[in-house]
């Protein structure tokens, strides 16, 4: 069916076809991603609202239909930001000022290339997928540093410095957490990592049980990597106004915002893939339709992890900067290294259950 449909444009475009086809596939990932980013912002405001016994956004609606109240909020917000003037501060490095938000969102989108959505659905099924994700996400910090420097503002610069130090520190803990996953699954391919978690016991086969401390480390460093509360010292409103994006307005600010949420969704998806069995069903395989794998399970897990991120934001007060650094270097790093040693020792015994 699909092949016959595609035959016509294929003959028409000739050698340019693979390029066009890849672009279409990229759009198929990016457009739903951007939509979900928009609605994660709404979900965040609603959920935090409910936690604080408020209603959250409930006014803006489509075509005046009352019971859809609040659902059009992200679209109204986006439109508003789109129509606002972009102000470039005097003394700013103009080119870098504009490039910074692009550099911030680029890695958040590029990393999705290797994320497997279901057993067949993946844009680029490469062997070194995990490494690719680590490399690409490690570039996200440039957007923030350049934004802070190019703004020619002390507050922005302080925010950028804090953020750079924080991201580099937590990347280490995160990298070592990924090494643990890699040791257990013996593969860098994300699809292969999910397949290693397959088994008859459903939820009890996933890596979150044998790697529980690492799972926690990964989630917490993920919160720190995305500069979310309680680790949002890079934009601490009470200390440095808004950190690296004080000088940004309109769409340039919105792009930073999009990047933060896209990164959050990415980190949650990766947590779901590496520790919560990706597309696998939480029920035993023998349960028929309920036990069969599919994209819906990944979506559900992703939604749960994201809701946890929002929950943290509503619950915890902001970390003090020195304590945040201490947590990264003196708690997480030794913990993950010790766990790698434990896994290595476990591998040498007959009790190792993941040999292929």
């Amino acid at each position, binding site marked *: 069916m699909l092949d016959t449909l595609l035959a016509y444009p294929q003959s028409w475009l000739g050698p340019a076809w693979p390029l066009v086809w890849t672009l279409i596939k990229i759009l198929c990932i990016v457009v739903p991603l951007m939509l979900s980013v928009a609605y994660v912002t709404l979900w965040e405001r609603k959920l935090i609202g409910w936690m604080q016994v408020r209603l959250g956004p409930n006014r803006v609606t489509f075509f005046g239909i009352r019971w859809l109240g609040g659902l059009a909020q992200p679209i109204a917000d986006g439109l508003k930001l789109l129509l606002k003037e972009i102000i470039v501060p005097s003394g700013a490095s103009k080119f870098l000022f504009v490039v910074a938000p692009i550099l911030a969102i680029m890695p958040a989108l590029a990393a999705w290339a290797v994320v497997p959505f279901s057993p067949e659905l993946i844009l680029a099924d490469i*062997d070194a997928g995990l*490494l690719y994700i680590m490399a*690409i996400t490690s*570039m996200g910090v440039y957007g923030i540093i350049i934004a802070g420097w190019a703004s020619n503002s002390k507050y922005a610069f302080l925010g950028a410095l804090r953020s750079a130090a924080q991201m580099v520190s937590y990347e280490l803990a995160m990298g070592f957490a990924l090494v643990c996953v890699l040791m257990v699954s013996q593969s860098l391919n994300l699809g292969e990592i999910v397949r290693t978690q397959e088994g008859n016991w459903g939820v009890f086969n996933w890596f979150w049980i044998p790697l529980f401390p690492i799972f926690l480390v990964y989630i917490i460093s993920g919160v720190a990597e995305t500069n979310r509360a309680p680790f949002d010292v890079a934009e601490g409103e009470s200390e440095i106004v808004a950190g690296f994006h004080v000088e940004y307005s309109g769409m340039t600010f919105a792009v930073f915002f999009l990047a933060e949420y896209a990164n959050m969704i990415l980190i949650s998806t990766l947590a779901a893939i590496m520790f919560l069995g990706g597309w696998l069903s939480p029920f035993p395989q023998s349960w028929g339709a309920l036990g069969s794998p599919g994209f819906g399970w990944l979506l559900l897990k992703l939604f749960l992890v994201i809701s946890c991120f929002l929950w943290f934001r509503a619950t915890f007060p902001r970390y003090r900067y020195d304590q945040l650094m201490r947590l990264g270097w003196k708690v997480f790093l030794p913990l993950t290294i010790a766990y790698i040693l434990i896994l290595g020792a476990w591998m040498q015994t007959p009790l190792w259950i993941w040999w292929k």
Partner: protein
Amino acid sequence: MTFQTFIFYFFAAVLIFAALRVITARNPVHAALFLVLAFFTSAGIWVLLQAEFLAIALVLVYVGAVMVLFLFVVMMLDINIARLREGFWSYLPLGALVAFLLAAEMGLVLASRYTGLADMPAPPPLPAGYSNTKELGRLLYTEYVYPFEIAAVILLVAIVAAIALTLRRRKQSKYIDPAKQINVRRADRVRIVTMPSEKKDQ
């Protein structure tokens, strides 16, 4: 021209441009950013050579960590360009020597037809399912394990030395041990006294 050659020439052009800008850009921050671009494009070229592990490690280590700290330092420096230019003539001989050596080595590779480098055996074709990462890991941890560990120890010594040289405790530091903060009980900080209410003087 196949698509692959097009990509190679594109990367090569970007790489040469970025490398040139690293040494010609006046602003040190711009120079550092062009160095990042140069690293990234050379990683692209390495991927074309099927060395995906090295390419990704280059991005991960140099672009993702080393250059971030580098930028960190460069951005905070107050650089006086005139003072930097002062030593130009005294550094020239050494600089020229290094440049000459680099050029000579490049020439040896480029003129491989005459220097006999082309007679080196070509690498055997890779079997299907060949994983760069796995092979590198196997070699590093079996055949080259001693050099690898020596390198690791040297790095560790460098880290310890750098910290030992720069670490000094400030006398007036207000640092409080977080463990102590967590263990604080109300009784340590607050004392509740009961006292009879006083009558207001008439």
